[in-house]
């Protein structure tokens, strides 16, 4: 009973309800939603946004918005590809990932240094560094579409799971990158919930001053979060390349806002301190589901933006009003002692 009551207090619960209702509607209108291949497809579409969602979650919980992850992803993937090509180490996919992570961490650390040292709003700083990374990628390096080194190509072609819908005969495969997603979520889950650094991320976002007094190193935690964000973004970037089977420099930019909308829908508090991986997944699922089902339920291409805009507004309004309501819950009038 208490569990149920607690459940209804979480925004994740409401997102979950919305997802269930929407999926039933989609199923009713198209008859395709719960087909095994559609489910695998949806999971596949969620892989990269869910990885990015980690970046957005970590930065929101600890500090504020980070909008630089798409460009960190683009630039670090590019640099990793050209370094491995130049060193002739394209056979190993691990090496590409390692390089990307190193490059991504450096870029993330740059964000971290500026944000921690000067206490500037993270939105503006990451906007600025995004612009810089974009200039480096497209201006200095003149990056263009590239084929992937052999290792990544193999990874892109391999599949983790193939399903075939008995009724329609349509198939779908789950790419290897799904494993990376799972690994990242497991690691992040463990770090956030079972290490003091992870709890520190929440503590810092909840009350910076209290965190410092309790003995958390606020600056190190924030710096660490942005550095980790760089690394995670880089992994997301390589995954995107693997899944598209080539490196596409111009396809990265612009993904940040939808990811942020997704995690806020999933209950992440923009003021910091609150946000769960469960919420990340649910929020991302909701937006992926909506944008991947508009055709299934027969909404005209011309109306799609209207729908997505409306879902974002309605969803965030619900969670904003709900958390405002929660903050207004005053201590109940106590019986005079």
């Amino acid at each position, binding site marked *: 009973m208490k569990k149920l009551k607690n459940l209804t207090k979480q925004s994740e619960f409401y997102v979950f309800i919305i997802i269930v209702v929407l999926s039933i509607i989609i199923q009713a209108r*198209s008859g*395709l939603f719960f*087909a095994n*291949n*559609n489910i695998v*497809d949806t999971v596949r*579409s969620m892989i*990269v946004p869910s990885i990015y969602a980690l970046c957005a979650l970590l930065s929101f919980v600890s500090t504020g918005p980070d909008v630089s992850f798409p460009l960190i992803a683009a630039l670090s993937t590019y640099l990793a590809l050209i370094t491995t090509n130049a060193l002739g180490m394209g056979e190993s996919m691990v090496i590409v990932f390692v390089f990307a992570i190193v490059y991504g961490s450096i870029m993330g650390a740059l964000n971290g240094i500026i944000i921690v040292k000067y206490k500037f709003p993270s939105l503006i700083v990451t906007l600025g560094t995004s612009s810089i990374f974009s200039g480096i990628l*497209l201006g200095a390096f*003149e*990056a*263009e*579409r590239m084929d992937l080194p052999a290792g990544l190509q193999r990874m892109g072609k391999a599949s983790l799971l193939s399903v*075939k819908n008995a009724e*329609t*005969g*349509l*198939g*779908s*495969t789950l790419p290897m990158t799904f494993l990376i997603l799972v690994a990242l979520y497991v690691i992040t889950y463990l770090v956030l919930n079972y290490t003091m650094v992870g709890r520190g991320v929440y503590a810092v976002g909840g009350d910076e001053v209290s965190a410092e007094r309790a003995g958390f190193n606020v600056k190190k935690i924030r710096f660490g979060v942005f550095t980790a964000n760089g690394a995670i973004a880089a992994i997301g970037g390589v995954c*995107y390349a693997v*899944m*598209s*089977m*080539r490196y*596409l*420099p*111009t*396809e990265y930019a612009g993904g940040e806002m939808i990811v942020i909308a997704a995690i806020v829908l999933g209950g992440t508090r923009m003021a910091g301190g609150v946000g769960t991986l469960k919420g990340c997944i649910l929020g991302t699922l909701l937006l992926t589901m909506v944008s*991947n*089902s508009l*055709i*299934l339920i*027969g909404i*005209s*291409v*011309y109306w*799609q933006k209207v729908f997505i805009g409306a879902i974002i507004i309605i969803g965030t309004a619900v969670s904003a009003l709900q958390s405002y309501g929660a903050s207004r819950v005053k201590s109940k009038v106590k019986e005079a002692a």
Partner: protein
Amino acid sequence: GTQEGGSKTTTTEKTETTETTEDTAETNDATSSDLYDLAKYKSTKDKKDWTIAVVTKDNTANWFKRMEVGVNEFGEETGINVIQKGPANADAASQVQVIDDMINQGVDALCVVPIDPGAIEASLKNAMEKGIVVITHEASNQVNTLFDTEAFTAKDFGAALMDSLAKDMGEAGKYAMMVAYTTSTTHMEYANAEYEHQKEAYPNMELVNDGAIPTCESEESIDTAYERAKEVLKANPDIKGFTGVASTDCPGIAKAVEELGLDVKVVGVGTPNEFKPYVESGTISTVKLWDPKDSGYVMCKVASMILAGEEVGEGTDLGLDGYNSVAMVQGDNRCLIGQADITLTKENINDYDF
């Protein structure tokens, strides 16, 4: 400046009219009827001092890198100063800025591949009023241009795409269409032309969703193309054909088709290297394109001929295969149309490398 005066001695009266644009609308009309008089664009400057600027949609795209090859080739061949510029963002407003800046730098000719022809009309008109030669490409409906050079017209191209698709899918069955955005003007033109042609010539074929154009958008992203294609195929598993007119479309569609294990013919526009794997595997049955290298070269060539005061029109030889005797069609503008379409199939795709 002196440079400006030097380059436009023949059009001094016109430059003056622009200075006093506030006059009235009628004056504008009166002059604009002369705007298309090629003789006025003959340059008195030495050939070495001409500058031809090519403004593309997005200089980072492979397509336009290939175009730059042609543009530079032309420059080296003729000794004319050529520059290729793209906007900082692939959006129409940024392209307008680049065009305006080029005009102000006093280039002698502008060759433009518009992102949105509508958005640059005013800028191009301004350029022509200043005596700058304006040539466009992929803009058969551009009004303010001396010549629009095309490998062929959008209508013909759309029809040709449809012919290929129809042939590959046996002239019967359902098909779907993808464009980058519903706001992409040329893509929508191709898509509409395809549909018109299908209604006329292939009555047994049917565009899904009761002929709604387009079926879906790829948003210039291969991954989105893949996702949307999958969705379309799931909603309509009886589809037999799929076309995509942006270079991002077909790779995405083909990937979806392969993964779903369907027998769907994919026909579309794109560059050979990128499409090769899918053409070889047979998923993409036909690729239609023209060589952007040639288009770049041809635009510059036409511009230089006008600057030199040479005749351009029906039957002109632009010095490249496929453009040895161009046809001229008078529509919204004067359109120089070559026979430079390339049809790639499994058989010949290895002959191309870009």
